[in-house]
């Protein structure tokens, strides 16, 4: 157990000569990795993406590329996948069709006391047929063209290990470039290079992902050479990093859109009031004020370039006069008083919203809640009107369905607070999923957005970028990806 003894003093290249041995990444948002490293459980996990391979990957232009897959074919409702040969799991088991089947079935039918965030993504899948050792057929309820996109995010786990019960959750065993060396909950995950990796040889002998909750400490780690990458930075820290000769800043577009929604009570039950709020908000100034250039104002639930993107909420919608008119039409008396629930992270945004809405005569009272409380019906199911700001839904696939389904379908998470999902939208969402190509999908997406814009149930506010502080010892081309891809990082 040499590694664990050493982990106290991870040294990056600056102090050790002869090639970079260890890459240390300090991060915050990956905390969830540090509470559990279950490969089938949570959404974005850095170590998981390094230990496991998925069937497909996206290239830097967002195009689908096969990874474990040799070739694939869509025949109606069936996606036929042929796997690459000779790939082995880190424990020596071969990668085969059984593993794909077992993995997907595990996701579709998780133990009752476990949940998998992927279940809803793969809900369309009806059946999985193993054709031969390396070929598997995935049968969906109806034609599903997005499925391969979704599969980019699914780690393929060894069927034999899955059969053994819960062991797979902590004893990571993937086909990826790195293997788990050590895991200290709440502290760090240590990965070491997989010597038998089938693809491009991993750059680093060891990768350490450290959970460092405090931003200034992440930066200190970076500046003192104890970390090569400090993730999850705020724009205010950028000066500190760029002013240091040994580090620079790398940004990548974020995959979450911060939005605001309501509890649909009192005046907020009125569509016009909600529309007025939408028109009263100046997203452009808000974004610039709070994030500077490190965020983009949202013009859709997904980022520009993601599949399903439509510019349905142009920034030019900002119109105070119109907002006032709508309010007048709605017949609300001038100072309208509304609470705004917000988590600590979006407090700044909330304060800007507060001042912007004041111009149209809406008095906003900010109420800071713990992140988990925000969507608690207990907080929102109150008779008084409440707005809330939420940091956004994960969308690593960069596809609008990821947003539409939980927001507007009959499973909508704002439904408990009074939102009435329309059947039409629900149907359109199904259509979207079945749409055979991007153009068609975009069309459906536009329809969805038009209807929901009318409903004004959600205001898409802005999309903060990911900011990384990076040591000059390494080179990292983000390539438009929204998360860290270890293979993009090179030592200099």
């Amino acid at each position, binding site marked *: 157990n040499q590694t664990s003894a050493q*982990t*106290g*003093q991870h040294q990056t290249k600056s102090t050790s000569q002869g090639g970079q041995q260890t890459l240390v990444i*300090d991060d915050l948002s990956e905390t969830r990795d540090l*509470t*559990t490293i279950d490969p089938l459980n*949570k*959404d974005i996990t850095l170590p998981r993406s390094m230990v496991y391979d998925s069937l497909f990957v996206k290239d830097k232009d967002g195009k689908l590329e096969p990874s474990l897959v040799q070739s694939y074919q869509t025949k109606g409702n069936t996606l036929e996948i042929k796997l690459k040969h000779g790939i082995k799991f880190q424990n020596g088991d071969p990668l085969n069709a059984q593993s794909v089947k077992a993995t997907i079935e595990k996701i579709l039918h998780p133990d*009752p*006391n*476990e*949940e998998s*965030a992927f*279940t*809803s993504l793969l809900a369309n899948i009806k059946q999985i047929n193993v054709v031969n050792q390396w070929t598997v057929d995935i049968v969906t309820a109806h034609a599903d063209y997005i499925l391969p996109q979704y599969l980019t995010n699914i780690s393929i786990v060894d069927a034999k290990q899955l059969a053994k019960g819960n062991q797979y959750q902590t004893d990571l065993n993937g086909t990826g470039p790195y293997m788990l060396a050590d895991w*200290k*909950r*709440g*502290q*760090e995950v240590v990965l070491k290079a997989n010597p038998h990796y089938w693809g491009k040889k991993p750059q680093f002998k060891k990768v350490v992902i*450290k*959970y*460092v*909750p*405090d931003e*200034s*400490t*992440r930066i*200190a*780690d970076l*500046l*003192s*050479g*104890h970390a090569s990458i400090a993730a999850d930075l705020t724009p205010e820290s950028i000066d500190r990093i760029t002013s240091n000769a040994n580090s620079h800043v790398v940004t990548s577009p974020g995959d979450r859109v911060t939005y605001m929604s309501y509890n649909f009570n009192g005046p907020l039950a009125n569509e016009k009031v909600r529309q007025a709020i939408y028109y009263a908000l100046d997203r452009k100034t808000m974004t610039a004020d709070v994030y500077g250039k490190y965020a983009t104002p949202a013009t859709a639930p997904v980022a520009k370039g993601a599949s399903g993107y439509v510019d349905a909420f142009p920034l030019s919608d900002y119109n105070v006069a119109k907002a006032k008119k709508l309010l007048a039409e709605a017949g609300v008396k001038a100072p309208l008083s509304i609470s705004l629930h917000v988590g600590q992270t979006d407090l700044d945004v909330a304060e800007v919203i507060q001042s912007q809405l004041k111009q149209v005569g809406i008095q906003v009272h900010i109420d800071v809640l*713990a*992140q*988990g*409380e925000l*969507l*608690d*019906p*207990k*907080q929102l199911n109150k008779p008084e009107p409440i707005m809330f700001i*939420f940091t956004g*839904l*994960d969308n690593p696939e960069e596809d609008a369905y990821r947003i539409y*389904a*939980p927001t507007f379908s009959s*499973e909508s*998470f704002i439904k408990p607070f009074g939102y009435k999902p329309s059947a039409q939208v629900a149907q359109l969402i199904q259509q979207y999923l079945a749409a055979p190509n991007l153009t068609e999908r975009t069309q459906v997406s536009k329809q969805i957005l038009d209807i929901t814009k009318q409903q004004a149930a959600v205001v898409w506010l802005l999309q903060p970028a990911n900011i990384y502080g990076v040591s000059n010892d390494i080179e990292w081309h983000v390539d438009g990806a929204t998360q860290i891809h270890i293979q993009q990082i090179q030592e200099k």
Partner: protein
Amino acid sequence: MTQGIIQAVQRLFGGLMMLLMVSMLLFFASRAMGDPTYSILAVDATQAQKAAFRSEIGWNEPVWLQLLVYMEHTITGRFGVSYELQQPVRQIIPPYLWGTIKLVGLALPLGILGGIVLGFLSLGASKKIERIFQGVLLCLYSLPGFVPIILAIEIFGVKLKWLPPSGSQGVQSLIMPVLLLAGAEAIKSGILLRTKLQEVLGEKFIVTARAKGVSPLRLQVQYLLRPTLSLVVSFLSLQVGQLLGSTVIVENIFAYQGVGSLAVHTLSTRDLPLLQGCIFVPALIFLCFRFLTDLVQPWLDPRLRQDGQRVMA
């Protein structure tokens, strides 16, 4: 003496009873906080998933049954299974607790020692210097926790590169957090100790000691410090309880694994079993210290040891 021991034991039992009460309080408080489903499951979890989760943690059972199960867990010391991590609390807590104990166990004695030194500094000096010194201590005490920590990291971690800015392994990464915590403790106990020392300074036996020509060191330790020890011990026992949970800032900034930050995290996820573990264990440690204090006090002050004498209150 024996009377004192009996009393202390009684107090300990009282304390244990109180822990149970606190646990109960915690239960109701967490009920009042609301459904943990929303804080633990992802936003877009389906209703079915939420329902499964609720039934798993027993949220749908009648409250009294939940309380019963919970109290049974408490009394047997099992604490149940964390909602979020799906692991028995008893397995989760130890590494965190060990981290905090290391931190506090080193920082507290150091801090008290430092406090004693600070208490003595300038003690015999002129009135003016004494007040200035006290003022300086208070200024330092007023500093918000993060300021000295961030500065220390900047200086020793980034500029001088002597010590790693973060991490909870190895002796090196302990140095800064321990020293900073100890410093804060030292200032606090120093301020308190000074008032007491000033009181002792006026006692007649100090004059006797000086008349004997006792060496200054001995005079300070045996004659000035010794009578304040009961205050020091009593303060120490209080600080044990406080520090075990108040290391949050230090733990957070140094990315140090400890109960404090775990507890704060747990609080936001409303993970009752884990939260209870986080509070219960330090509380238990505190109780033990309090128990020891009760035992030690009469040993420190023989005047409290009189069994035969009429207890005058």
